[in-house]
């Protein structure tokens, strides 16, 4: 899922201080799971902003709404009849949701309430870690299901670099060397022969290098 983290409240206050009617718009998908922008976070942020401005002697209207998703037309349409009641929207969705809402409601400022971090997994309670960089041409079949693109700082594709020590990456002692993980996994799978095969030059045109990416599926179009 997409991992995001809450923006500092001070930053959000700065963003919204000039608006009188503010809608806090949550998203029920990834940001709910990573506890950054779901219904609960909407309630907390709205309450905090209400109290902050009240204490400052300012009367502001702060509305709350959480959509099923902010990356689909039909859910974003649900706020069409209330959008004009607000001067600005703080979207707690990932960058996709904020942008999609901004595209739809051209005259309403859309402000991000979270920082979108990565595509990751919920490794432990309170710990989310990156697993994918959406490079567009998956190599996991060759690497024992561990991604050298997202988990190796250098994105090297043929074994570890010289910075790998005791299974850790030179960038931090808390960061596993992706290639150490790959080798351990290939050994467990009894597929170390795969490790010896030199990976072909990777097609990076499917990554960000090729500009913004789109997926078109004629078979599902109506």
């Amino acid at each position, binding site marked *: 899922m997409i991992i995001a983290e809450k923006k500092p409240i001070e930053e959000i206050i700065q963003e919204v201080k000039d608006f009188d009617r503010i809608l806090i718009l949550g998203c029920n998908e990834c940001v709910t799971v990573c506890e950054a922008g779901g219904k609960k976070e909407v309630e*907390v942020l709205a*309450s905090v902003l209400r109290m902050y401005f009240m204490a400052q002697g300012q009367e502001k209207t702060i509305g709350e709404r959480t959509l099923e998703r902010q990356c689909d037309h039909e859910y974003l349409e649900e706020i069409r009849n209330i959008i004009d009641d607000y001067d600005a929207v703080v979207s707690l969705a990932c960058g996709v949701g904020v942008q999609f809402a901004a595209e739809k409601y051209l005259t309403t400022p859309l402000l991000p309430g979270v920082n979108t971090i990565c595509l990751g997994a919920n490794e432990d309670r309170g710990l989310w870690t990156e697993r994918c960089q959406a490079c567009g041409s998956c190599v996991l079949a060759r690497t024992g299901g561990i991604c050298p693109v997202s988990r190796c700082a250098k994105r090297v594709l043929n074994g570890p670099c010289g910075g790998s020590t005791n299974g850790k990456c030179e960038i931090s002692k808390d960061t596993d060397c992706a290639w150490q993980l790959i080798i351990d996994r290939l050994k467990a799978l009894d597929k170390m022969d795969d490790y010896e095969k030199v990976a072909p030059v990777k097609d990076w045109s499917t990554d960000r290098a090729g500009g913004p990416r789109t997926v078109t599926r004629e078979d599902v179009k109506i």
Partner: protein
Amino acid sequence: MRLKIPTNFRIIRLPCTGKIDIIHILRAFEKGADGLYVVGCMEGDCHFNEGNFRARKRVEQAARVLDLIGVGGERVKMYNLSSGEGPLFAQYSIEMVNKIKELGPSPIRLARQRMSKKADAA
């Protein structure tokens, strides 16, 4: 025991302090509470193992947020005691009420009063 406790606080019962969420604490302040304290079981004695630890974290979260918005994090506190410690419960309630009296009314309550006066005048 017939212990005397202050009458100016309201007890809200929870099945376990682990049920409390930061939003419950914030809402209390938003509605004009001057202070709030959570009384959980002794640490290590939670029937659900970590309910009171969760509560403590949430109280700390709320305190940080309240500090940030100028309400004052010292207005929230977590206490731990066992169900057999009635006198300690009374002592904590007196301690908390005295502390809140020292701090004075919450800026939110004052703001709400100002707003309602303004609305009455209009």
